[in-house]
């Protein structure tokens, strides 16, 4: 008999469904075939998802008891030997199946009409880093929510318009409550970085719980109430709905509060000045890899190194001290970045900048966007975040202080450094060896303008340009022994580009150029452990048009190119993070996650010595396997799953260590 009731629903509402389906097909054809602007097609597809499906859900749900209100057929139905709960459920499922049928029509079109799927999947609203609202699943959820709202209220009134209006209000109100709850619980009750992805997750669950509460109130009322008395029905519904909705709110709050803390949003590797491998897991904390125990040890919570500079080792010094920044609650919703210092083993943490300091201390109002420890770990230079991009009157952005926070000095900045500040970003590079000057990079975001490296003499306050290069930025590497700074350079002579690696002696500030054949750019150079060699990728023009990648090794003392090997384009996607030296200083290892899906060990002539396959198959757009050697191991980060693997080079076995 439930089957009979199920199909009866279809027969009753067939005309409504057909109308909806016709409308949908028409709109889909328009979305797929509209000649001309893609924007129009996007608009139609967007309207289908955002407006049509929730509205159809609402209509279908609200029409649930329409046939029963005509002629008092509800008395017929309720006088039959069938459970009222069963009646409600069968109706719900039947109408839900009608909504699902519309979705199937949609899916059918998506699957068969080329281009439509791309349009639909492209409909996304980025909310924040790694959080975005993808229209399709949200449309599904909202259509289900409004359907449930409409259905839950449909037996309360014989006037369709009343039900529609009330259900629309209910749906919007519930969404509003879920929204507020997610914000309150995540924003205030959990004291941590506000993760939009988590917020969306909480919001979704809030909607689901509220919808379920509404449905539960509806079925309870239907089963118990006197159908013939509208006011009593409504009162009974309210009596059921209020406690259930309150319960839903509480359950959502608890559920949200118990959500596992956001998974690591990122893991990156940095080499300490003593050669140790540091793992920066955000927001998990700072870890060091201990080869002896083959384990990672946490040395600081929720910190991240200033990855903007790409010069992680500027924060370390001879393994003695680590300068790091930590995000804490602050004025902006993203928090404030506060500077800390600690010993390399994680002990003796001290706050150097930020709101946690006594308000009278001028350091409490500063935060560092870029920071560097001097070689002897005695002094710190930093750029004030607020003033970095625009000058604060009377307060230039460059500061220095002692490593214990004393001796705060504000250094005047050459106005030339600030020219066209909209086009440049400033960040700090290592101190000079003598500790009296700081290198400062003025990086141009406009590829037509060169970036400049300045030397700021802190004693005299004078600035001079050391280097000018196109694309200065990522391609800067200090040597392990702290003496040199390698800078990948690109200069233009007329319209002819020239590539070179500049070696800056941090003691004497002399600059040596090692010319490198190539036209496009040089990737981040890697020093080998004894600071004698550099390895990097050179991107050259090629007849293929996309450019050729040449892995090049140069010897620093004599400035000669030792070996060069052309790599495939796929292999060279590892140019940023996938290349490192082995302990012997001779051989290289690089990661090829896309092509051969393995680590490749290269001999000193860059010939392939060995291949070691990856433990998992990486996928996705982000750089999958960043690597760093540490002793006889290679650490590799699976940036998609945010896991850290360790490869033992002797046994060639992988182990997941984080």
């Amino acid at each position, binding site marked *: 008999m439930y089957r*009979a009731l199920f199909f009866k629903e279809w027969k009753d509402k067939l005309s409504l469904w057909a109308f909806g389906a016709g409308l949908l097909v028409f709109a889909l054809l328009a979305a797929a075939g509209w000649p001309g602007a893609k924007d129009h097609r996007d608009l139609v597809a967007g309207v289908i998802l955002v407006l049509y499906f929730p509205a159809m859900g609402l209509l279908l749900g609200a029409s649930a008891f329409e046939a029963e209100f005509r002629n008092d057929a509800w008395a017929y139905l309720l006088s039959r030997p069938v459970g009222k709960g069963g009646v409600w459920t069968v109706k719900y499922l039947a109408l839900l199946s009608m909504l699902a049928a519309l979705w199937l029509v949609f899916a059918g079109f998506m699957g068969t009409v080329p281009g439509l799927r791309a349009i639909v999947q492209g409909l996304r609203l980025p909310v924040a880093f790694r959080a975005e609202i993808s229209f399709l699943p949200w449309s599904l959820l909202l259509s289900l929510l409004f359907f449930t709202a409409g259905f839950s209220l449909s037996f309360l009134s014989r006037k369709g318009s009343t039900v529609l209006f009330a259900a629309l209000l209910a749906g919007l109100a519930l969404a509003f409550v879920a929204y507020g709850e997610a914000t309150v619980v995540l924003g205030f009750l959990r004291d941590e970085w506000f993760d939009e992805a988590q917020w969306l997750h909480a919001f979704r669950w809030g909607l689901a719980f509220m919808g379920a509460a509404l449905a539960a109130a509806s079925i309870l009322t239907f089963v118990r*109430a006197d159908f013939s008395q509208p006011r009593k029905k409504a009162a009974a519904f309210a009596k059921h709905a209020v406690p259930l909705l309150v319960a839903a709110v509480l359950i959502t709050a608890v559920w949200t509060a118990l959500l596992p803390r956001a998974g690591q949003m990122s893991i990156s590797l940095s080499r300490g000045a003593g050669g140790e491998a540091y793992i920066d897991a955000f927001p998990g904390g700072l870890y060091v890899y201990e080869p002896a125990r083959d384990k990672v040890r946490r040395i600081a919570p929720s910190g991240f190194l200033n990855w903007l500079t790409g010069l992680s080792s500027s924060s370390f010094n001879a393994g003695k001290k680590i300068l790091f920044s930590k995000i804490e609650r602050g004025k902006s919703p993203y928090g404030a970045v506060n500077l800390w210092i600690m010993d390399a083993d994680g002990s003796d943490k001290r706050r150097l900048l930020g709101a946690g300091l006594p308000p009278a201390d001028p350091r409490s109002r500063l935060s560092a966007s870029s920071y560097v420890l001097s070689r002897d770990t005695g002094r710190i230079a930093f750029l004030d975040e607020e003033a970095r991009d625009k000058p604060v009157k009377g307060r230039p952005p460059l500061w220095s202080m002692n490593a214990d926070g004393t001796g705060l000095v504000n250094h005047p900045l050459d106005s030339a450094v600030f020219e066209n500040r909209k086009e440049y970003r400033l960040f700090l590079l290592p101190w000079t060896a003598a500790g009296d000057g700081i290198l400062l990079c003025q990086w141009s975001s406009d590829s037509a303008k060169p970036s400049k490296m300045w030397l700021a003499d802190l004693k005299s306050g004078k600035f001079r340009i050391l280097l000018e290069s196109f694309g200065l930025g990522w391609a800067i590497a200090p040597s392990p022994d702290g003496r040199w700074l390698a800078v990948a350079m690109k200069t233009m002579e007329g319209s002819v580009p020239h590539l070179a690696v500049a070696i800056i002696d941090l003691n004497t500030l002399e600059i040596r150029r090692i010319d490198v054949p190539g036209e496009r750019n040089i990737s981040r150079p890697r020093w080998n452990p004894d600071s004698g060699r550099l390895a990097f990728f050179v991107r050259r023009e090629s007849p293929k048009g996309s450019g050729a990648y040449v892995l090049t090794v140069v010897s620093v003392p004599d400035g000669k190119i030792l070996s060069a090997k052309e790599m495939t384009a796929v292999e060279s996607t590892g140019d940023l993070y996938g290349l490192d030296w082995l302990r012997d200083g001779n051989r290289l290892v690089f990661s090829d996650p896309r092509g051969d899906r393995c680590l490749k060990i290269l001999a000193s002539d860059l010939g392939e010595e060995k291949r070691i396959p990856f433990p998992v198959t990486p996928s996705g757009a982000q750089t999958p396997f960043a690597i760093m050697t540490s002793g006889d191991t290679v650490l590799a980060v699976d940036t998609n799953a945010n896991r850290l693997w360790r490869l033992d080079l002797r046994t060639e076995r992988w182990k997941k260590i984080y």
Partner: protein
Amino acid sequence: MSELLRIERLSKNFGRRSVLRDFHLTIESGRVYGLLGRSGEGKTTLARILMGVIPADGGTIHYKSRRITFGASDYKREFGYVPEDPFFYDGLTVRGLLALNARFYPRWDAKRAAADLERFGLEPKAKIATLSRGTKLKLELVAALAAAPELLILDDPTSGLDVPTRRDFLRDIIRELAASGTTILFATHLVHELERVVERLLILHGGCLILDEDFDAVKGRHQASLEDIFTSLVSGDGK
């Protein structure tokens, strides 16, 4: 005669109006019970409560010694119900409605339904919405009887219909009685049909039964027509 239905202390209010109040009734199987009551005084309410369409506010109902709650539905398989106003889905055809109805009753006799349709001259393909009131009544009866109910509840179904139709209806009831000995609760405010068939007379007034007696005894005692008996009792100056 066994006790089929026992209603005790039944009460039902609509707003402040108390329609049924401390209502007691015991129905024995195989007999015809006539429930007289003025319009709007609770006959339909009682029928709906018995059929589980609306809940009572208080009291208990036992069918075959088993307690019936608002949520129970199995017992309805043995009940037939012809309401005051026809209440079928108007979008169905005659055949469609009977097919739907059949799914609810395990004892449904499709052959009998078909035979009854023919006897009443009902066109299976006709749309219910197009039928006259009298025809709908016939359909109601067909639907109710084809399920072979133990108890047939008639809630003033013939009011507003012409005399020949009412006669036809009565005839069909009598045929059913003769054939199956169905227990009947016949609620009405029209006394004339009732007089011919009622065995036990019930008069509903002020929310409960002011009379619950065998009809012959009542008639003998009052020596008046049922109409007069009813009028006098309900007007308050009864004997």
